[in-house]
Structure formats: C-alpha cells, structure tokens
C-alpha cells in the first residue's frame, strides 16, 4: 500500500495546467515542421510557419499559446494499492486546476449552468474520468480542451451493416463540416464501439496519444492511416484556406460492442494539442 497526500496532487495538477498551456509539445512541433515541407499551398505554408513561431513566443514569454486555455479533462488511473490521504482525490484535482488557472494567468472559460451561463471564475469543475488499475501508482493525464474544436465533434450510432464504409463516411463528413472552425491542422480522435457514453470517451482518449503512434492492432492502425490520407485529400488545409495539411494525425480507440450496434464518435483537437501526464 502506498499513501499519496492530496497536497502533492494539488501541486502537480497546478504545475501541469500551466506547463501544457505554455509549451507546444515536441511531437506537434515535429509534425508541423514536416508538414511545412510537404505543403504546396503558399498561404498554408505561411500559416504553419506562424503557428510554429507562435509556439516559440509562447514558451519564451511564458504566455499561453492560445487564448482558449480550455476546459480541463482528466484521465486518472489509480492503482488499487494506493491510499489517498488528507482529502478527496477529485477535490485535489479541482484545487490544482483552480490554482493553476489563477497563478498561470490562464483564461477561466467554464460557466456554471449551461443554459443560464455565469462563469465559475476558477475554470472548475474539471471533467474527470477514473479508472482503477492494478499496482501502487497514480497516473494523472490532463488535457486542456479548447472549444473551437470541441464544438465541431460528433457522435453517431451506426448499424452493424454500415460496416467500415459507414465509419469512414461519418468521420470524413464530420471533418468536412468542421472546415476551418477547429483551427486546422487538427488532430482527430475516433472512438469506435462500446455504448453511447463509452464511445465519446474513447474518442477523447484517442487524442492523448503521441502523434505518429499507431494502434497496436495493425488492422486498426491501417484504418487510421487511410482516414488520415482521405482527410488530407479534402483540401481544407491550414485554417481552412486550402492545402493538404488538414490533420496532423488521427488515432482510433476501440472497445467491444453489442451485436446490434456500431457507435462511432469523432473528437477534434486543434493544433495546440495541450496535454501532459504525471505519475505519483
């Protein structure tokens, strides 16, 4: 049995909130550099260069890459041999978010009631998913999700007879409808399987993977590459102004499903893919 103090969790979450908003991840930087070489639209190249420059300014001056510093989504993997002391785990995560957004001068974008609005003034609550796993460590994977891209995401309950073609058509249609709104070049998370609720979580989880990383099942890995190719053939391009760099990568997460169903969810992330993890 390992004990972890809530204070440690608060501090780690606070630092992570600030760090991910300021520093462009290395895999995104690399993917952007590669796409500049491949892009043949002149406006597109220029935009990709400006996005990279933006990342440099943000880390040098320690200000957020994007003004939409997002709503915090957390995936927690808690070892069953871990004991949390001096408070509740959820409250510790929210306290970390609260402090990070205040001390890091990040934008508080969360409203209390979705209909009546009214800012909570501290960017909480975070959306937290818990998973209990074997072992004695606590893994907190945290993403700051902007809503320019979140708003363009979609879910659909397909029929089994729709098969892989139905999945592809739905993914492509979603990206087409999104156009320039989610700040392309985008990163696409696709969930397939499970239930209505599970599939959207899978799509979100798919966004946590490193760019370039393929699904361990090569059938799914090939489908990722096929979809990525088709998306980049849509011509949407950086910011929607035309070009071949519409998506930097696409990841799929699957889960077994019911004999009668084929749920599919598409979660879109912008180029400022902000996420990071800590293990305590």
């Amino acid at each position, binding site marked *: 049995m390992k004990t972890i103090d809530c204070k440690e969790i608060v501090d780690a979450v606070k630092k992570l909130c600030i760090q991910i908003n300021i520093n462009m991840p290395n895999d995104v930087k690399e993917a952007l550099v590669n796409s500049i070489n491949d892009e*043949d*639209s*002149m*406006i597109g190249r*220029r*935009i990709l260069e*400006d*996005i990279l*420059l*933006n*990342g440099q*300014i*943000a880390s040098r*001056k*320690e*200000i*957020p*890459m*994007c*003004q*939409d*510093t997002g709503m915090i989504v957390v995936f927690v993997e808690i070892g069953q041999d871990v004991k949390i002391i001096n408070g509740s785990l959820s409250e510790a995560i929210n306290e970390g978010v609260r402090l990070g957004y205040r001390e890091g*001068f*990040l*934008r*508080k*974008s969360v409203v209390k009631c979705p209909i009546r*609005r009214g*800012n909570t*003034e501290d960017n909480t609550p975070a959306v937290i998913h818990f998973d209990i796993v074997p072992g004695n460590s606590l893994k907190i994977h945290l993403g700051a999700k*902007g809503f*320019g891209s979140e*708003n363009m995401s979609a879910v659909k309950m397909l029929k089994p007879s729709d098969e892989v073609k139905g999945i592809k058509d739905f993914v492509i249609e979603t990206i087409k409808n999104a*156009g*320039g*709104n989610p*700040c392309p070049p985008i990163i696409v998370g696709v969930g397939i399987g499970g239930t209505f609720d599970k599939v959207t979580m899978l799509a979100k989880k798919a966004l946590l993977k490193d760019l370039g990383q393929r699904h361990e099942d090569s059938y799914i890995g090939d489908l990722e590459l096929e979809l990525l190719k088709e998306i980049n*053939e*849509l*011509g*949407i*391009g950086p*910011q*929607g*102004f*035309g*070009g*071949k760099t519409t998506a930097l990568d696409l990841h799929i997460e699957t889960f077994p499903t019911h004999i009668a169903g084929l749920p599919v969810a598409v979660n879109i992330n*912008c*180029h*400022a893919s902000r996420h990071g993890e800590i293990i305590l």
Partner: protein
Amino acid sequence: MENIKIETPLTITDIDKLTVGQKVLISGVIYTARDQAHKRLYNMIIEGKELPFELKDQIIYYVGPTPASPGRVIGSAGPTTSGRMDAYTPLILEKGLKGMIGKGNRNEAVINAIKLNKAVYFAAIGGAGALISDCIVESETIAFKDLGTEAIHKLVVKDLPTIVAIDSKGNNLYELGTESYLKKDK
C-alpha cells in the same frame, strides 16, 4: 506574398482594394466583442439605446483574451470562431461596422450583409494567441466589465497579421482556397 498595411478606421478606398487571400497588417484602434457582448450590442440596437462605441467604419475583433500577466498589456489573444456571432452580425454591419476579425467561415446572411454594406472579413490564425498578443500595444476595458474576458476592450494594435477571408464583393477564401487547391491537385 506581399503584406498590405492598413490603418483604422477603414475607408472605402481601403476596402475596395482588398481581395481574398491577401495578407493584411492592421494598425490602429480596434474593438473586441464576442458572444455575450454581441448579444448585448444587438439588443441595444433593437431597443434604440446608445452603443458603448461608435460602430461607423470600425473593426470588431472576436476575442476573449487570457488575463495579462505582470508587465504585459494583454494575455494570449487569438481569434475565436466567428460563426457564433453570425446571428447578430448583419444588423451590426447595417449600423456601420466595416470590418471583422475572427476565424472560420460565415453564413450566407453575413456574406450578403458584407456585400451590401461594403465591409470585409479578416481571418487571424486560430490559436496564434501569443503571436497576436505581441501586436497589441494598448488595451482598455470600455464596456460590459461584468462579462470578464467577454467584455468590450478598446485595443490599439500595430501590424496585427490577418488574411482577407471574405472581401467586399463576397469572394470567400474558405470556399475558393479549398476549390483551387483541389483543382491544382488533380
């Protein structure tokens, strides 16, 4: 790709010479307004109330910046998705607004209002909040303070980088860019 420099307030001559795809560096005073501020401006116009700033020949920037850290004028300040303002935009254009800065496509009603009122829609790079922040030299909250990040700010900008996305003739880069790219590709 040549940069065109323009100063606010916009003149008819400025607007006439702008065409889609041009890179424009904007300097001068611009006003921020996003979702809630637009709703309020719209209702004030309907109710015949006096607006917090004169719309004539001005530019509105759709942005909700992060708080300024010590020593900075403003925080990260990239554009938000313009489509959410579409419901309010035609009326605001009718009242004299000449330019908008945001990101993403506009609906048909807005494009028609842009043509009718000889206005222009500029796109800034979505997510380039740090880069744009460096072009903002002054910032002052002038209305709707209670809205926090959504309040109306009067900004003074120097060479804010944008691209003409919809020009006064209604040419739309979000359609033309993709089409011309696909044609070239085939």
